[in-house]
């Protein structure tokens, strides 16, 4: 195999490892929300450092490949998309870290009813699925898989846009849970951001494979 291919392969592996780490972080943040497990939340914060260092490593490796191999065509698009996916993943990692921080700050356990009414669990479900599917699409270089997540993002948007009404409804019923409700709202906002990041990742995958720029285009 050519040296450049070897380098690209190793960067790809690094990125996939980071991807799995970030997915695990998001799953863990869901668990620590349902279990109200502050230890797990702290673990997420520790692992966030690993996400950050993975991001730096990938950046550096990309820089080296750019400098040493002057990649062109598909190799160039691959590296450019890796760079962006890398920073998107890091943001998703930050989001998981942010959720963990709320858990640590929160005083009392979140009521299951609150979680059900606000459909936070659905959001986690959709978010982690989106991460999984895009990863699969990336590994298999499958743009159909990558495109399939745009629909899923709409679910997140919809839940997010109903969130205010749901929270108000809930607060009318349990005005004493104001604290929790605000946290829940913040978590919803953050999870909505996960959808946006993953959508960007999918766009990068399509750019890398098909050389089409679909960013900022109106959905037909």
């Amino acid at each position, binding site marked *: 195999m*050519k*040296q450049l291919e070897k380098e690209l392969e190793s960067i790809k592996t690094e990125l996939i490892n980071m991807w799995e780490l970030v997915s695990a972080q998001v799953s863990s943040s869901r668990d620590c929300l349902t279990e109200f497990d502050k230890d797990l939340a702290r673990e997420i914060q520790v692992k966030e450092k690993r996400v950050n260092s993975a991001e730096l490593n990938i950046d550096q490796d990309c820089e*080296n490949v750019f*400098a*040493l191999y*002057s990649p062109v065509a598909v190799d160039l698009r691959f590296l450019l998309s890796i760079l962006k996916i890398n920073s998107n993943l890091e943001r998703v990692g930050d989001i998981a870290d942010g959720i963990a921080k709320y858990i640590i700050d929160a005083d009392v356990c979140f009521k299951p009813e609150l979680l059900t009414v606000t459909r936070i669990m659905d959001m986690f479900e959709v978010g982690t699925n989106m991460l999984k599917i895009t990863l699969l699409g990336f590994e298999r270089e499958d743009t159909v898989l990558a495109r399939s997540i745009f629909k899923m993002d709409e679910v997140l948007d919809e839940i997010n846009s109903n969130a205010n009404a749901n929270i108000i409804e809930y607060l009318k019923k349990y005005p004493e849970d104001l604290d929790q409700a605000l946290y829940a709202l913040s978590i919803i906002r953050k999870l909505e951001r996960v959808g946006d990041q993953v959508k960007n990742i999918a766009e990068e995958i399509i750019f890398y494979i098909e050389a089409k720029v679909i960013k900022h285009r109106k959905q037909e």
Partner: protein
Amino acid sequence: MESPILNSQNFNAYFGNNHVVKNVSMEIPRNNVVAVMGPSGCGKTTFLRCINRMHELIAGATTSGIIELNEENVYDMHAIYVRQKIGMVFQRPNPFPNLSIYDNTIAGYKLNGIKLSKSEKDGIVESSLKKAALWKEVKDSLHKKGTFLSGGQQQRLCIARAIAMQPEILLLDEPTSALDPISTASIEELLHELKKNFTLVIVTHNMQQAARVSDKTAFFYMGELVEYDDTKQMFTNPTDTRTQNYITGRFS
């Protein structure tokens, strides 16, 4: 830290009164590919030819300072011994036109009158050609003349001829400058394989080539060693502004 295989200390080379390599000190670690780059006439080829004492063959060429191979000054050894320990591949492929591919590969033994049994010869030819990634292409035509091969194959034959002597270091003087891009790519791939067994020093005009193939890069300018560092470092964050200007193509 393992001691370097090659160590040049305050080395100078001259053509008559012309000082072409100025006070070069650099260490070359074992099993590395070291690229030497720089503009034409910067002394890089001369420096390379000093390492295996080919420089002194030119009338009026002199040197000062030391180059150590395994901590022993090559200028204290016999030149013929040095050249057996330090192989060289030239800019233009130069297989011996009167010899077959087989005989070219073992030319170092054959022409030196070193007696080998048939099986030893076969073994050396096969392993050298395999290391030079040429075996598959020529194994059925070993007794054809070396000059029947294409340019890239001839150059790999020259590499096989050099490594058949089991040198410690292989010097390559712009080995791909006379070759087309495909042959160039195959030679570059070969270098990555060769560094498992040898230490390589490659002179090249071509910065991209230096970047692609080497672990460490030296930048020569006007006979001086301007900068010598890991290739990644050199190409992402060179320390010297002259290096920066050269690799970014801003050289005036």
